[in-house]
């Protein structure tokens, strides 16, 4: 392929585009242009046959639900939802509030985890999905050093009404980026975001669960994210994120020790 051929092709691409937006004459009345256009039309037809049908399939529920959550969040929050971060926060809160009602029935029938526990796990997963992918504002209060970690702990203690220090997950290679306070059925929940050297992010989610019985460590999964949750001494905790299940389990163990200690 010569430079001249490449330039001719690029020129033809521009002329075809101009024609299709009614800004130029029809290209390729004959010769080389016509052959190229016929070949490109065959390519386009093949590509549309390959990838077009995906667009005709029903949209998976989980994708529709993502927009649905935002729509309900915007409707419930009114103008307040327009402020920065509020749509995600509302969405997480609504998931938290609705999950118990929606999933409690199934959980009861299965004799499995409590509805409260499922609500906790769902809220943790939703929180992680909403914020961990954020580039600009993954956390509400960022932590750059130990003094910041202390301020975050004070903020959490004030809002959750009990001492709460972010667990140190440094031994597993995860550094605390910061945290945020979220609405929850029992007042407020705390979310802490950690990151390792490779950019993997993990959320530690803590919400008071007054009067709830203790549970063992349980697996939570949803929409491509998974993690572990438990309830201990009235405090629900979940560790979810983008690491392999065993790594998340080790992190959960570390967090459990830190919170119990």
């Amino acid at each position, binding site marked *: 392929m010569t430079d001249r051929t490449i330039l001719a092709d*690029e020129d033809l691409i*521009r002329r075809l585009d101009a024609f299709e937006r009614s800004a130029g004459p029809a290209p390729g009345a004959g010769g080389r242009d016509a052959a190229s256009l016929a070949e490109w039309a065959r*390519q386009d037809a093949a*590509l549309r046959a390959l990838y077009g049908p995906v667009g005709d399939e029903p949209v998976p529920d989980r994708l529709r639900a993502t927009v649905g959550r935002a729509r309900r969040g*915007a409707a419930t929050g009114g103008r307040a939802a327009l402020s920065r971060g509020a*749509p995600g926060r509302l969405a997480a809160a609504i998931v938290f509030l609705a999950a118990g009602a929606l999933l409690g029935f199934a959980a009861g029938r299965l004799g499995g985890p409590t509805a409260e526990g499922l609500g906790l796990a769902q809220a943790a997963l939703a929180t992680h999905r*909403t914020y961990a992918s*954020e580039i600009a504002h993954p956390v509400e209060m960022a932590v750059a050093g130990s003094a910041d970690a202390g301020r975050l702990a004070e903020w959490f203690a004030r809002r959750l009404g009990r001492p709460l220090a972010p667990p140190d997950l440094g031994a597993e290679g995860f550094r605390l980026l910061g945290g945020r306070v979220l609405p929850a059925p029992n007042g407020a929940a705390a979310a802490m975001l950690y990151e390792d050297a490779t950019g993997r992010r993990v959320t530690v989610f803590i919400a008071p669960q007054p009067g709830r019985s203790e549970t063992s460590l349980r697996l939570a999964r949803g929409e491509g994210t998974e993690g572990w949750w438990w309830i201990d001494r009235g405090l629900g905790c979940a560790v979810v994120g983008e690491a392999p299940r065993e790594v998340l389990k080790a992190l959960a163990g570390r967090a459990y020790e830190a919170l119990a200690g």
Partner: protein
Amino acid sequence: MAPLDEIEAAIPALRRYAVALLRDRDAADDAVQGCLERAIAHRDRYRNEGSLRAWLFRVLLNVVRDDHRYARARAHLTIVADDRFPGPSQQGGQEAHMALVEVHDAMGRLPADQRAALVLVAVEGMRLAEAADALGVPEGTLVSRLGRARAALRQMTHRGAGSDLSAAPGLRKEPLA
């Protein structure tokens, strides 16, 4: 502020693009999910400059580039053989089926930036200006990628003058990044 209705209406096109980019149905839907979450969280940043569709496609491409979870799918981009492709073979016979398999394989061997450019124009029917916007590159860069993609595809599907695959321009195996 991007309206939620229009974001929702774009989901089928986003899935089409993600499947063409990632060549893995599950990874594609994960990427679309990530795109929707990011687009919804940042929809106040969409300011009616260019089309909403181009903005959403740009968000999707960034999600695919940013997220290490797609590294596996990206690493296998050049060798993956997904038996769910090609989908529609009912209107053609065995010959047409083979031609689609050939095109699908050829797409897998294109550099990711050329593949992304070609899909926007050939499948989504975008004009050059909109496709350049969706890719976040100048129009000249897009035209150059399109030219190379079309020439490589022609040679790989044995329609061109030469069928020597190694001679196809831009035929490096590289990840989508």
